[in-house]
């Protein structure tokens, strides 16, 4: 269900603009965004052929910083791909700095002249949507302003991915709307606790995963032409239940 809006050309334009901005503001060499569905993943956008190739390598190997970030919901930073595979610095609740990569991945990075990779989960609470990854030809960690910029773009991309189905109706998905505007509109709904509470309730009502529950909640709002916050309030007030298919 999520695949349909994501394949829209308007999305590509928004992702392309946001990825380009992320690369520009972080001083990275390139970026790509991967969509993660239940058991699937596919590349949504890559800024250049190296980024596309890295995405392909991760997908083929079934491992890498992006998949790890997507699985754990934590930031994964590989500031030096070629460092000795010795230590993993891990924050308990937050991200990890690591050079713990498979030999295949290190070799692929070497061939592509890639020195560092940084992966940012795109998520809403426990809902995992995908990953933003940045690569750099120079080794070294992201400095504070660059890291902050990357986090900001990861958030904007998350909002953009979510804003699409709601925006299709008014023709905004044709790429004419500023990415920032889309992000703001959907971002506001995401600050409302009731939306997340309703997502958890729908998960139990439908007996599905949290990802699927969130998709169903958004799809219902879209189908009824209601703001997601309104549908969420109905659910939390127990005046609406979503039924299993």
């Amino acid at each position, binding site marked *: 269900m999520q695949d349909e809006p994501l394949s829209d050309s308007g999305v590509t334009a928004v992702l392309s603009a946001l990825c380009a901005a992320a690369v520009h503001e972080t001083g990275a060499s390139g970026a790509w965004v991967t969509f993660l569905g239940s058991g699937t993943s596919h590349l949504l956008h890559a800024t250049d052929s190296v980024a596309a190739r890295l995405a392909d390598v991760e997908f083929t190997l079934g491992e890498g910083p992006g998949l790890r970030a997507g699985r754990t919901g934590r930031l994964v930073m590989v500031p030096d791909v070629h460092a000795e595979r010795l230590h993993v610095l891990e924050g308990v609740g937050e991200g990890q700095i690591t050079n713990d990569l498979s030999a295949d991945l290190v070799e692929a990075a070497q061939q592509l002249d890639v020195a560092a990779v940084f992966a940012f989960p795109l998520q809403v609470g426990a809902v995992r949507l995908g990953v933003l990854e940045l690569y750099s030809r120079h080794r070294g960690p992201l400095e504070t302003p660059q890291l902050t910029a990357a986090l900001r773009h990861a958030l*904007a991309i998350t909002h953009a991915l979510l804003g699409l189905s709601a925006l299709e109706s008014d023709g905004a998905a044709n790429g004419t709307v500023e990415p920032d505007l889309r992000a703001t509109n959907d971002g506001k709904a995401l600050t409302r*606790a009731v939306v997340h509470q309703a997502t958890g309730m729908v998960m139990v009502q439908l007996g599905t995963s949290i990802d699927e529950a969130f998709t169903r909640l958004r799809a219902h709002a879209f189908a009824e032409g209601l703001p997601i916050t309104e549908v969420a309030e109905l659910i*939390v007030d127990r005046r609406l239940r979503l039924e299993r298919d």
Partner: protein
Amino acid sequence: MARPDVDREHVLARTFVRLADTLVSGFDLVELFDDLVTSSMEIFELRAAGLMLADSTGRLRVMASSSETARLIDVLELQGDEGPCVEAYRRGEPVTAEDPDEQARRWPQIASRMRELGLGAAYAVPMRLRDQTIGAVNLFRGPEKPLRAGDLPTAQALADVATIAILQVRAARASLELAEQLQAALNSRVTIEQAKGVLSEYGRVDMSVAFAALRAYARSHNRRLSEVAEALAQGRLRPERVIDRAAP
């Protein structure tokens, strides 16, 4: 009247010790902020309290609220882009507005809603980390019940201790940047809301009961609140382990 004062000093002292404690034990930022709000309610005899943090775009988001009323006023503040918390965050200084007329002048969009919700004197203290303001704490007393002299600086001191804890945690975990830490905490807050939804639906209880069950489970199993919430929301922990299924 001496008695309540003594009790109050005890609660205050205990709160400082507990907040300081979090500096050494493994803990959750979410829990720390929640603790700060809950303790402030008791110490300052508040009608409502809330805590907001800025996300990586600089937009304030509700991180902890003493009640649904408190959450509502926080959301109204964010929507209207005005109010004590918003102002304290912007100016990096404590905010005081005790008089309803003054509140109406300063915050024309939300002042009447504050009164409807039974909120009177309004205050906020910023959460400052070095030269950066990362959020603010809202404090509301009942109508015609201003805080006592010296209370606002005490509230600021509590907020300062909580803010310093963020730095400490980072050092202890060789952890990453502040921005990422705060983003993770905000995301944990969302996960907790999702987990509350799961428990509320499964146990047929309201959100505050669901939250209490979540917190009780985390404490009795010695696990972090955000960890338990994530396990629930991702289906790795069954809701029946945490709350009883309501009779149909």
